[in-house]
């Protein structure tokens, strides 16, 4: 709760809204005991007194009634009606939505058809019809506004409930012996409450507006009682002669609704966990760079990464995802970069072309040199012209990485035409050729398919074709087969291997699978806690790992044909990269760790075989 309030008030606008609303609510509550004129006392002699008149701070209306007094009493009414309508609509709508979403099937079908039917009316028609039946009056206007808004809540909450009802913890609750009622109350509803609160807080303002609107039309509160809407309605005929009678209640409505909306947005932001973690930030076109100076190049090569440092800055925390990583890729070579989740292997790969999501990603040091040209901090237009043309990417999940609404052929054509001013027809021809090259059967027909119409393996072939579109020198493949089934994975790996040899491609292959590295890569680099701990020719590293982490990780991997056995495991957990221990990051899990391992910087040593360890398994 205190966290919630802290988050809420971190948002200054929401704090402002909360203060304004609090002042208005307190004044409205105190109205009966404030020294005001009676709101309905007419005095036709003092009609349309201007504001700041003697005894009437805000002036008087067409019947000579004190505007300040009427404003305060009207505010009371409007607030009460708006909150009541939101509460009624929110609770009833949520109840309907939860029931429909949880039970599904026919209950859901029938309820939602009814809701759709109600939503087929522009809402005011329904409100007008309800008022027509019940007759004008404030309570009836409240009912109308509440009823009209129930379908919106019901539909919204139903959607969320369906998502929750299919989560695994609901299944677990069923297996633990819970009945429907208990599951609804203890498992579903607690997860729905924030959504209901958000929905209500963002619609209260709207409901206040709506009831004011009905009153404005003369269908809400009836004279002499007046809420803000009917004050405005009565003042309309004197708009030109006595504008203050309109402006006073109008500004009050604006103030109330605006403060409610600001506060509602604040509540929404504070309750939404994604907003809290800043995950809703939009990634920029290139990763932000905050680098003091570029390190001197330590050699040449097609692609050289020197002491690259990439961090994620989330609030006060700094995650050192990539920590002084150096790699080198020669033409036509396949380098495997292997590590567990969180080791920084993907971030390293994405940093090359400035594709790390930023915010929160920042490149804070190091250099990435393509043919000697430093890309870190390079102008956007230079990076863009190299992306896809010199260095192309293949990503993990081909369903989410292809645009769902463009035909795959058009996505290929775009990839070609971004870098080469060829005609559409030419690009089309080349695109079909590319699809054939990645062995997509019936390429000319598949050209017009959308990604969702293809299987996972076919989609990944499209991804590969797109990477090949401009004959790049380097392909960076970020776990391209992890999301695929093992038989399809074998097909894709064989394809990549063939393409690499026939086109002389250099590949940086990111994976967590030693088997894949062993089959595909010439050299391998092992990452742990954001650093390279070992590198060298694949066969050597796999046969005789030098770093204890590599050795033990390889031992963990079960191999087919090994039979039933107890598996080797590494105790403990991988390190959190926002809180790395001094010295070797693996030391807390390492059997061989000595005091020296836990202090100071440990260098990556060796030439062809490199290892970052004081007590390596074999001499590098």
């Amino acid at each position, binding site marked *: 709760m205190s966290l919630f309030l802290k988050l809420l008030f971190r948002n200054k606008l929401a704090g402002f809204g909360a203060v304004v609303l609090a002042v208005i609510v307190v004044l409205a509550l105190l109205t009966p005991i404030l020294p005001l004129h009676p709101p309905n006392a007419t005095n036709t002699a003092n009609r349309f007194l201007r504001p700041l008149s003697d005894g009437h701070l805000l002036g008087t209306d067409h019947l000579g009634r004190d505007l300040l007094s009427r404003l305060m009493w009207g505010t009371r009414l409007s607030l009460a009606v708006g909150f009541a309508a939101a509460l009624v609509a929110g609770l009833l709508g949520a109840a309907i939505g939860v029931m429909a979403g949880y039970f599904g099937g026919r209950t859901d079908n029938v309820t939602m058809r009814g809701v759709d039917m109600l939503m*087929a009316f522009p809402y005011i028609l329904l409100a007008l019809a309800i008022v027509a039946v019940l007759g004008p009056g404030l309570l009836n206007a409240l009912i109308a506004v509440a009823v009209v808004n129930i379908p919106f809540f019901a539909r919204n909450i139903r959607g969320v409930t369906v998502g929750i009802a299919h989560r695994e913890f609901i299944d677990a609750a069923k297996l633990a012996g819970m009945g429907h009622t208990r599951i609804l109350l203890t498992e579903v509803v607690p997860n729905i409450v924030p959504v209901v609160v958000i929905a209500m807080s963002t619609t209260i303002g709207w409901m206040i507006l709506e009831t004011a609107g009905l009153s404005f039309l003369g269908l809400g509160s009836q004279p002499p009682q007046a809420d803000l809407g009917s004050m405005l309605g009565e003042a309309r005929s004197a708009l030109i002669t006595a504008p203050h009678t309109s402006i006073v209640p109008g500004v009050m409505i604006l103030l109330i609704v605006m403060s409610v909306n600001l506060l509602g947005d604040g509540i929404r932001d504070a309750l939404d966990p994604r907003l809290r973690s800043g995950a809703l930030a939009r990634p920029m076109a290139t990763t932000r760079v905050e680098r003091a100076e570029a390190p001197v190049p330590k050699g040449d090569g097609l692609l050289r990464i020197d002491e690259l440092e990439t961090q994620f800055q989330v609030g006060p925390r700094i995650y050192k995802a990539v920590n002084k990583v150096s790699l080198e890729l020669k033409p036509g070579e396949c380098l495997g970069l292997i590590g567990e989740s969180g080791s920084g292997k993907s971030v390293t790969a994405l940093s090359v072309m400035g594709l790390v999501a930023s915010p929160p990603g920042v490149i804070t040091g190091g250099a990435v040199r393509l043919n000697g040209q430093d890309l870190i901090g390079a102008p956007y237009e230079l990076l863009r012209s190299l992306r896809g043309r010199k260095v192309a990417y293949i990503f993990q999940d081909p369903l989410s990485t292809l645009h769902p*609404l463009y035909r795959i052929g058009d996505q290929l054509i775009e990839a070609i035409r971004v870098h080469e001013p060829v005609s559409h027809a030419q690009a089309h021809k080349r695109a079909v050729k590319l699809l054939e090259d990645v062995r997509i059967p019936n390429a000319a027909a598949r050209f017009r398919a959308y990604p969702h119409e293809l299987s996972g393996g076919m989609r990944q072939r499209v991804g590969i074709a797109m990477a090949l579109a401009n004959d790049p020198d380097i392909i960076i493949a970020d776990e391209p087969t992890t999301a695929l089934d093992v038989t399809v994975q074998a097909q894709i790996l064989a394809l990549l291997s063939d393409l690499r040899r026939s086109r002389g491609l250099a590949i940086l292959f990111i994976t967590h699978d030693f088997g894949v590295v062993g089959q595909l890569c010439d050299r391998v680099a092992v990452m742990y806690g954001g650093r390279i701990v070992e590198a060298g020719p694949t066969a050597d590293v796999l046969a005789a790992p030098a770093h204890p982490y590599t050795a033990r990780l390889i031992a963990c991997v079960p191999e087919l044909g090994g039979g039933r056995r107890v598996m080797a495991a590494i105790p403990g957990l991988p390190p959190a990269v926002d809180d790395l221990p001094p010295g070797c990051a693996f030391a807390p899990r390492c059997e061989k760790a000595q005091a020296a391992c836990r202090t100071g910087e440990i260098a990556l040593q060796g030439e062809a075989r490199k290892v970052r360890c004081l007590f390596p398994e074999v001499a590098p």
Partner: protein
Amino acid sequence: MGGYILKRLLSAIPVLLGITVIVFLIMAMIPGDPATAILGSYATPENVARLNRHLGLDEPLWKQYFIWLGNLMQGDFGRSFALNRPVLDEILDRFSATLILAGTAFVLCSLLGILAGVVSAARQYGLADKVITFVVILGISVPSFFLGMMMILLFAVQLRWFPVSGMYSIWGGGDLPDLIRHLTMPALALSVVATGVIARLSRGAMLEVLRQDFIRTARAKGVHERRVIWGHALRAAMVSIIPVLGIQAGFVLSGAVYIEMVFQWPGVGRMLVDGILKRDILLVQGGVVFIAACYVGFNIIVDVAQAWLDPRIKT
């Protein structure tokens, strides 16, 4: 596509029937006796009974519904007793005025809202985003009728740029420029709230889409950032923006009721409010059914647009 449109049209039939049932039931619940309302409280019981029989009000409820429905199908919406003319004629006369007002406002709010939302998302936390966010909050918080009144004070009374009210000038008007002069203020006032809502939603949808993997793919291909935002991202965001446009069309149509009152615009909104206050049931009943049917039709267009945009829907 043709098959989808046909399917969608057919699925509208039960919705339309449902609408007529709801409207009929609501109207049937109205207390009081229409015959008495028509003839006045001094009418003799015999006359009331005769008129009831004449109007078919002595039949059972379900039979009344089918009679009414049958008449509706033949274009007979009944006769408004307050105006003493056929309901349909009155509706048609006034609906064109509402359509001009609401249609203009809808186009305005769609274009401005999406534009503001995209710019806001593309410059998240930048100056443009902050300004737009603040204006949008202001926009969704101001009652449209109050805004309209303030516009009249400022632009019509003080600055005399636009006429105070009405749809055409009484003398020498009636042409397009005259209509535009009269239309500007009410259309703007009507579009403000919806513009705000659409802008907020578009911003959210864009931010959501911009985090997706396929945006990273587009950037990795070397696509220009302008095209990433206005092509790849906006196209995907439209999938969640278009349904909102459909809902907002209903809100614009609803808001037209207030704006027609403020600007004396001769549309159906004012007709309905007058009808309710005068208990002119057939007029209200017919008007509600007519507008709801138009709205259903509009939503079919929205759904078809959605299906055209998103190939995953048709399967």
